[in-house]
């Protein structure tokens, strides 16, 4: 089994290095496009075999080598494949495999085809380290690794200039990449503090040792650790107030958005909370856990509200990702860890599918993202329409698709905990989710064929790409049916979460309420955007000048707030410090050089070629030395 662990872990790494061989050279190498997906597929295969093994025999724990061994600090490079990590491994490798095949079609004409695959496989490798590590240090390495790969991939088209179309203030990929990286750096500081606190108080970073030692720590320390780790999770999972980078990250290529900024990397924060459930489940940190749940619920609603008015195809999906991450945090914060993990897996499948569908649309529309320039694409792109429709149905939470089971469980949890405010917000958000996802689908595929006005000639994606997407579509449909068996599989590791009798009794009615909201959302979207033909695209001046619309389209002015109150003051301070730096630090260094230079210039005249004056200088020097020696002798 040990070799399978290594295969699952290192196959993507080998792929990355292999693609790296062809890195900058040769415009496109088809071997890379075949070998890399195959290697990721191999990793998927190994993960599936491991899953069966783990279900039967329990966790596989391997220690590859000693990594850091200094004094009492001892951190091995160890990997654990237990039920939680194997679930993540399967999710990651499944989505990765599909995205790798998909990228073959999507990046077909890109001149940096090989570079793209190298980065993409490196990302998968980092993500595997993150989920498989058996200690916090390894987790952190993977955490930073995915951050770097995310930076590389968001900024993949780094040569693009800033463009500002009429709607949606677009920014350059390199700006977006830096923004994502810096935001994550801020959060990672919190995470590092948490990890240091663990090491100080426990003396080890191994999960099992740490979790065993937790009951012996004081409450204050536990809360501090929980807060530190959660700040890290907030950055990676783009929770308020560190959420602005995720929508800007849509500047990257669409397969990247699907893999990194929807299905895998952004769920790392949720994974961290699930992984550290012995900590977050403790009595002492209930306050933090409740805050996580409340923040998650808030973000779920907050992001969904911004998605209502946005006109950018990819940004809407990005907001919905934010919103769904909020759902996961809500579940994890309320103690329903296995439900959070279940929603994480289900969400990964249908959200990746949704993004890949959006990629098809972009491919067809020459990278146009404005929904109001599309419309009626269903004739040209039947396959993509079906995929995006299925994914949106799953996202909206309609039975029997995946989202129905997982999201319903989360909402039920909120009810069961008696947190009715959270429950109400989550139910309402479910309605919003349904509305905006179908607003997007209908505006893109139904109604008037508006793209003709703008002179686009849409064409369907390659056949093999559509076929490659089918596993995700199937999973988006059937993933929810395995709720029972997933529960049985995971529950030996994660704490059990049972609904009370009262909730159980009401479950059917609660589900109906959620369903009613979701269907209402879809029906409104249908009548507003699909049935009205040309009128659907008419922009209502009155609404657009209204306060709420302005608030939502400007993302609650949070990005502007950051620019005005953080970026600009920071820049002003930096310029001041730069001036000080120039005066003091540079000044000192320059002065030393200047003194030496002028001394040399002045004393140059001594060397006049006259032996007599040399002798005079020599004599004076000798006298001085004798004098100095005499003074020293007298003094001592």
């Amino acid at each position, binding site marked *: 089994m040990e070799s399978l662990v290594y295969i699952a872990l290192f196959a993507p790494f080998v792929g990355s290095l292999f693609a790296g061989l062809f890195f900058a050279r040769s415009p496109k190498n088809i071997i890379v496009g075949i070998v890399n997906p195959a290697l990721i597929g191999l990793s998927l295969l190994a993960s599936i075999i491991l899953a069966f093994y783990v279900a039967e025999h329990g966790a596989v724990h391997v220690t590859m080598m000693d990594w850091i061994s200094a004094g009492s600090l001892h951190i091995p490079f160890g990997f654990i494949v237990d039920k939680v990590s194997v679930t993540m491994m399967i999710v990651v490798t499944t989505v990765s495999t599909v995205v790798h095949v998909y990228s073959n079609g999507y990046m077909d004409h890109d001149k940096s085809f090989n570079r793209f695959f190298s980065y993409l496989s490196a990302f998968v490798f980092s993500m595997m380290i993150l989920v498989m590590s058996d200690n916090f240090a390894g987790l952190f390495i993977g955490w930073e690794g995915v951050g770097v790969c995310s930076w590389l991939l968001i900024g993949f088209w780094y040569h693009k200039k800033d463009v500002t179309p009429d709607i949606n203030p677009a920014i350059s990929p390199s700006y977006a990449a830096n923004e994502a990286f810096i935001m994550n750096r801020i959060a990672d500081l919190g995470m590092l503090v948490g990890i240091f606190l663990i090491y100080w108080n426990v003396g080890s970073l191994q999960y099992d040792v740490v979790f065993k030692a937790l009951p012996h720590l004081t409450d204050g320390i536990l809360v501090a650790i929980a807060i530190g780790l959660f700040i890290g999770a907030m950055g990676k999972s783009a929770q308020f107030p560190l959420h602005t980078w995720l929508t800007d990250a849509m500047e990257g290529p669409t397969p990247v958005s699907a893999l990194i900024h929807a299905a895998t990397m952004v769920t790392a924060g949720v994974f961290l909370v699930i992984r550290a459930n012995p900590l977050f489940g403790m009595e002492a940190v209930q306050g933090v856990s409740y805050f996580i749940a409340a923040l998650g619920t808030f973000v779920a609603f907050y992001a969904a509200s911004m998605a209502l008015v946005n006109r950018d195809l990819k940004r809407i999906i990005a907001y919905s990702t934010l919103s769904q991450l909020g759902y996961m945090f809500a579940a994890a914060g309320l103690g329903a860890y296995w439900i959070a993990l279940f929603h994480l897996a289900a969400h990964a499948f249908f959200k990746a599918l949704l993004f890949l569908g959006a990629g098809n649309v972009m491919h067809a529309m020459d990278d146009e993202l404005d929904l109001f320039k599309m419309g009626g694409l269903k004739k040209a792109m039947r396959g993509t329409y079906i995929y995006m429709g299925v994914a949106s149905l799953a996202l909206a939470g309609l039975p029997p698709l995946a989202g129905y089971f997982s999201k319903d469980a989360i909402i039920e949890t909120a009810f069961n905990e008696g947190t009715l405010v959270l429950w109400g917000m989550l139910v309402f958000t479910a309605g919003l989710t349904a509305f905006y996802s179908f607003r997007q689908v209908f505006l893109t595929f139904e109604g008037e064929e508006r793209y003709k006005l703008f002179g686009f000639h849409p064409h369907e994606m390659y056949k093999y790409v559509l076929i490659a997407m089918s596993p995700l579509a199937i999973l988006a449909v059937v993933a929810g049916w395995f709720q029972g068996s997933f529960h049985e599989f995971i529950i030996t590791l994660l704490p059990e979460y049972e609904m009370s009798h009262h909730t159980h009794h009401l479950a059917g009615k609660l589900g109906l309420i959620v369903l009613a909201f979701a269907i209402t959302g879809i029906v409104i979207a249908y009548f507003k955007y699909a049935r009205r033909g040309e009128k659907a695209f008419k922009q209502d001046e009155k609404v657009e000048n209204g306060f709420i619309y302005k608030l939502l389209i400007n993302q609650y002015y949070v990005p502007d707030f950051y620019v005005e109150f953080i970026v600009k003051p920071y820049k002003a301070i930096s310029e001041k410090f730069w001036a000080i730096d120039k005066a003091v630090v540079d000044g000192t260094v320059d002065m030393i050089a200047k003194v030496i230079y002028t001394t040399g210039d002045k004393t*140059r*005249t*001594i*060397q*006049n*070629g*006259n*032996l*007599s004056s040399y*002798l*005079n200088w020599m*004599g004076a020097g000798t006298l001085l030395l004798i004098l100095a020696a005499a003074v020293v002798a007298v003094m001592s």
Partner: protein
Amino acid sequence: MIGVSHYLILSGLLFSIGFMGVLRRKNLLMLFFATEVMLNAVNIAFAAVGNYYGDLSGQMFAFFIIAVAASEVAVGLGLLILLYKKYGSLDLDVISSMKG
């Protein structure tokens, strides 16, 4: 009674005279004379101190210095003649050629 201190004072005076000569003189030949004076001032001091301690090594050293000075003068005077042939003068201000 003439003691060792008198010899040392004489040696110091002679040395100073030689030193001043080195500093002030412009003629190369005179510089050679001045260095000879300094060397012999040291010789006096060596001989006097050697005698004072009853140790012969001081006087031995004086002989060595005389021998070295003689050879130095032999070589130096040869060079001086060549220099004089080249420049027609032994004035240091005239024959200086390297300027910084």
